[in-house]
């Protein structure tokens, strides 16, 4: 029983010792679509490599945006990460990298679910008193969940690159940090064009 619990804890930290390739990619994509659907109803959008936020005007949030933006962001991250990994190693499969990095976004579903509990005050109320947001229980809960989820996603991204490309320490840190920064910039640029 203790062993099983340890195994489960290890899998929560690094699911990619067991999961990679097509199963990771397909399940990651399914959860991404589910996350987008929940986000649509919560009025939140994931339009970058690592960010989830509420849209200013819920009327601006279309199904096209909700579904396409996370996919474009994810594609940018995988593309940049694969290119950077090629500097250090050729001994990896793109399918593993794409699958594990896509599955690493699964915890964002929790952020979107927490977003369902938020009823945002109007922009006029926020402009009059910005602290009104911090007196909103749903919003504070969303913030706390979001911070935990972002840390969780980064940890999974670290293991995704580590397992898929067999990179460690300095090389791993360099590839991941640059992938997140360049991937985010590329994603924002492409999303502005869409």
């Amino acid at each position, binding site marked *: 029983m203790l062993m099983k619990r340890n195994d489960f804890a290890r899998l929560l930290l690094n699911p990619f010792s067991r999961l*990679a*390739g097509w199963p990771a990619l397909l399940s990651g994509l399914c959860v991404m679509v589910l996350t987008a659907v929940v986000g649509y109803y919560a009025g939140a959008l994931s339009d970058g490599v690592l960010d989830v936020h509420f849209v200013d005007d819920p009327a601006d949030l279309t199904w096209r945006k909700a579904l396409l933006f996370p996919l474009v962001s994810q594609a940018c991250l995988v593309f940049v990460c694969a290119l950077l990994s090629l500097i250090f190693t050729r001994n990896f499969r793109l399918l593993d990298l794409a699958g594990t990095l896509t599955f690493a976004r699964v915890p964002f579903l929790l952020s979107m679910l927490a977003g369902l509990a938020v009823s945002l005050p109007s922009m006029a109320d926020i402009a009059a008193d910005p602290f009104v947001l911090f007196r909103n229980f749903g919003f504070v809960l969303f913030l706390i969940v979001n911070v935990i989820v972002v840390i969780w996603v980064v940890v999974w991204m670290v293991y995704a690159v580590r397992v898929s490309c067999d990179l460690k320490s300095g090389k791993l840190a360099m590839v991941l940090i640059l992938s997140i920064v360049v991937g985010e910039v590329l994603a924002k640029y492409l999303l502005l064009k869409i």
Partner: protein
Amino acid sequence: MEIFFIVMLPVYCPSCHAQLHVRKMQCEQCGTEVSGNYELPELALLSPDEQLFVLQFVKNSGSLKEMAALRRLSYPTVRNMLNEIILKLNAYETK
């Protein structure tokens, strides 16, 4: 409850951690002893788990996919384990 003790071939000196050599071998049937100074094979220098990995890998015709299924691990995890073993064996060769 039965407790099994696995007798492992010692490959490093417990005192100074240098690699051990074989000095004496004995025929279990007639008791003949052969002495000399024989190096251990490189595979014997790997840990028991790594030796088991190599054995399973050969038995599975060198298929990482089958190794992944056998060990219930992902394909890249198994490939990384193999990379580690290759690195170790290369290091033994250059010593």
